């Protein structure tokens, strides 16, 4: 039985993700908005990819399509060659707002996804949940109510909740944007730690170029109206990275000026 637990926690499922010629329109009263225009992208196993771009360029839309919460109008999103038709436990989403369930306590929230996983007993689920709370340093608050936690603590619980079912892919939509700089820096450490230990494929959406360079092994730049991928940067800096590092600052400057180039061209 111990072996099974060990296996549950230590299995390293990763997946190759590809997005092929995806288009998505939204129809509003003011006409159609092209949120994604012929977007293609391949993400390898165990990659940490950051999406960066100005507001409204379709980052969330692409993330939702990969999550299976929305369907593309044309084109395909595939995991290991299999088209995505709906949400699945192999892909967990961490939303911008915390989205924790306030009627459950901390451990109840982490257990929610685990409970839908068939081949485990309740005792094992509890052990797994405790392990992930420990990982995000929230084990002392297992029985706290959500409204008693600070914003940063909530995000750590949300991280544990999305990690607990051991997904292949972790989709994070601006998870730290509502937090102060100090808390965020601590969470950067946590998330790099988790990524290094757990070897997941992570897609991380942010407005903050510095954040993207600090976390990602690749940074994908988007531009709006219509939403397109403009440029990609590989980030080869050594890990664990500190956001105040010099080289990191240089690279983010470079990316920021590229980003400004599009937005300037856009407004001309």
């Amino acid at each position: 039985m111990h072996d099974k637990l060990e296996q549950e926690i230590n299995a390293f499922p990763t997946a190759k993700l590809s997005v092929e010629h995806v288009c998505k329109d939204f129809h509003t009263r003011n006409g159609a908005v092209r949120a994604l225009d012929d977007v293609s992208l391949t993400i390898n196993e165990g990659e940490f990819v950051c999406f960066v771009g100005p507001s409204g360029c379709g980052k969330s839309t692409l993330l939702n399509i990969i999550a299976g919460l929305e369907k593309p109008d044309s084109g395909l999103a595939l995991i290991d060659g299999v088209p995505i038709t709906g949400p699945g436990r192999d892909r967990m989403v961490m939303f911008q707002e915390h989205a924790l369930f306030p009627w459950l306590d901390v451990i109840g929230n982490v257990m929610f996804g685990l409970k839908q996983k068939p081949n485990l007993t309740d005792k094992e689920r509890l052990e797994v949940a405790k392990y992930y709370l420990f990982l995000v340093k929230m084990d002392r608050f297992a029985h706290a109510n959500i409204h008693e936690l600070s914003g940063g603590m909530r995000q750590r619980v949300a991280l544990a909740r999305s990690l607990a079912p051991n997904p292949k892919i972790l989709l994070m939509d601006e998870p730290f944007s509502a937090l102060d700089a100090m808390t965020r820096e601590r969470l950067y450490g946590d998330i790099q730690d988790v990524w290094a230990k757990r070897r997941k494929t992570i897609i991380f959406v942010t407005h903050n170029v510095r954040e993207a360079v600090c976390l990602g092994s690749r940074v994908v730049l988007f531009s709006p109206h219509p939403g397109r991928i403009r440029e990609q940067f590989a980030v080869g800096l050594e890990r664990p990275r500190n956001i105040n590092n010099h080289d990191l600052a240089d690279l983010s400057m470079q990316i920021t000026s590229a980003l400004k180039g599009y937005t300037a061209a856009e407004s001309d």
Partner: protein
Amino acid sequence: MKRFLISLLFFILLIMVWAGCTGELAFLGLSDSLWSPFVLPSPSVVAQYLWDNIVNGKIPLSMLITLRRLLIGYAIGLILGVPLGMLSARFRCVSDTLGVLALGLQALPSVCWVPLACIWFGQTEAALLFVVIMGTLWSVLLSTQNGMRSVPPIYARAARTMGSGPLHTLVFVTLPASAPFVVSGMKQGWAFAWRSLMAAEIYVSVVSGFGIGQYLHYGRELQRMYQVIGIMFIIILVGLLADKILFSPAEAWLHRRWGTDKE
């Protein structure tokens, strides 16, 4: 504590003024009543009436009869109203039909159902229940519907990504998420049920039991102002107690824990 004392002081003062006007504060030189006791009886007469009729069991018995009607009508209103409100929140076609009907009927003061109930059911228990149900149902339906609509959609989305199917999401996510709103609806429903039952009891005098509202009615018939005022006290008390002891604490607790309070 300080606020409680201020409230207490206010009400003591109010009763003193009442006593003064009805000639009960002789030691202050206010020995003449400003009005005839037919119009405004003194506090002690009202208290005496209440005391006598509580001790001889008349008021407790009529309370029992009234509360029984109230609970049955309220329960039926909830059992119909909550699920219908959920359907109405979930399905456009239900909210376009039933939802609009509820909106219209809720605007109708519940006392307006009394003539209809009397013609349909005569002077019977059924008429009373019907009025209470009509008073409760629509407001419960509407507030449940509004409550379900204000559940942030992110909860259901999060649940779906964690592998919840539609039924699982409804039972384990949408229902608990809407609890604070449903309780607010139940509270409002209770207030409506209480008002409608009083209206019904005043107008419908059935032989099957003498409710508290009927005491009020006969107080008027018999020109007993002390009975009218005494029974009004009881009605206020019941409404207040249910709200302050039962519903408001539950509602406040839920809103706080769910993070849906308005602060």
